């Protein structure tokens, strides 16, 4: 997996999300009005329309909903193939697009348990996952 090459995120008001990742903690936006946890961060709670929120630490534990493997690099920032892109559903509900690192092609399947891990890039920390259950 390439290091220090991933595209840098563009921040709006979710700096706290990236700050938490830099501390190797996954936190998502939780509505102060109704408690709904949403991702990606947004201006309103889509359930109750409250603009009040807090950053709720997540367990980082989840499972693979689906996964593909790039066999050919189509982007210079991701030169090493094969690499995967997976949709991971967290135990708390939301699902995110990420990579499951540390496993070779063919070793991962839908339903496998994964847990959050982190990649410190040049300008930010990326959220990744690895195979395994809660530490």
């Amino acid at each position, binding site marked *: 997996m390439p290091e220090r090459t*991933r*595209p*840098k*995120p*563009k*921040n*709006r008001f*979710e700096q706290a999300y990236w700050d938490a990742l830099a501390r190797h903690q996954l936190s998502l936006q939780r509505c102060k009005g109704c408690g709904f946890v949403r*991702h*990606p*961060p947004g201006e309103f709670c889509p359930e109750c329309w409250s603009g009040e929120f807090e950053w709720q630490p997540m367990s980082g534990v989840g499972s693979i*909903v*689906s*996964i*593909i*493997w*790039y*066999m*050919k690099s*189509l*982007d210079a*920032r*991701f030169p090493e193939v*094969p*690499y995967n*892109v*997976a*949709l991971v559903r967290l135990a708390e509900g*939301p*699902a*995110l*697009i*990420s*990579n499951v690192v540390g496993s070779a*092609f063919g070793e991962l399947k*839908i339903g496998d348990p994964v847990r959050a891990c982190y990649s410190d*890039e040049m300008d*930010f920390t*990326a*959220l990744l996952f690895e195979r395994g259950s809660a530490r």
Partner: protein
Amino acid sequence: MSNPLYRKVAIVGVGATPYYRRGESQPQTITELAGKAILAAAQDAGISVKDIDGFAHYSGGGSGHNNFADTNLIMEALGIPEIGFTATLTMGGGGSAASIGLAGAAILAGDAKYVVSLMALQQGNNRLGVVLGAKPPTPESSFVQPAGMVGPGHAMAIMARRHMHKYGTRREAFAEIAITHRNHAMVRPTSLQKKPLTLEAYMSARMIAEPLCLYDYCLETDGAVAVISTSAERARDLRQKPVYLLGSVHGGRREWGRSFSWMNMPDDIFTSAGNLSIARLLYEKTGLTPQNIDVALLYDHFSPLVMMQLEDYGFCPVGEGGPFVESGAIRMNGSIPVNPHGGNLSEGYVIGMTHVREAVEQLRGTAVNQVKGAGLALVTGGPAPIPVSGIILGS
């Protein structure tokens, strides 16, 4: 059935440039491609380009890379004196089919008499296949781009994988779709891919985003297709047999709008082509059922999405698209012939307008691969973020 558009508007002219491999339309300009397609469509209809007084675009008027012929430049290039309507559907190729509905709305409202729906595409170095990674990051894309998901066809591969897992769908189904499109394209002079494709060649092709291989992805094409619509009344006096618009729906479910980005959809939407709501409304508006449709022009950017659209539009039950396709159902002699022109996969990719062109040829009875007696055609826009769209056309 409440649908004021029903048979009130007709397609009367279609024109196109040749289809070119990506980059090979140079040194023509994008306005030149658009102009050639519009001139050909006007000639086909038997009207002067000066009669054109409306434009109904989609895909934000361009191809996602801000390289497009906007209405004012087309008017300048072709000497169109005055228009009463110009509008564009938002987002991407999902609106292709409903650009005809947008034209119909303008005509029905009396804003314009002859409305052009158009796509002119020059990819050059701006490959649509990697547009997600190439775009400058936004706050939303920042939750996807760092994972290296660079193209729409890779997001769709994630959905296809889930469909395979959930329903036992086999790669053989995707192969059947790719091979059927190739067989259709082989006999069509406009096609960019005319070499036969075998199951062996499909199975040994290189993977792009496993489980999808080279042949699951559409071609990278330059070219333009223009379609002219007018009122049913005026259509009767023109050169061609009118092709009537029976219904047009665009929009979609909120959760589908994340399909090229962070996903996180409920599972039933995740393994669909995002067209379930479109199909329901389209059948309601027209009083028709899947059994009434003679030929389906389904937007085929990625082969699994053809299968998922067959499910969304009710040609087979949800989850049974794989065996349905493998049975040969989408071939010319199958229960629902799909994309007799060879589609985006094998004829050429002009963001959906080739499908409208083929529907018109089918309903005029002039198609290269003619479905015998075709009277009703379904055309869909690309399963892409909102809007997705569908129209039904009739002779």
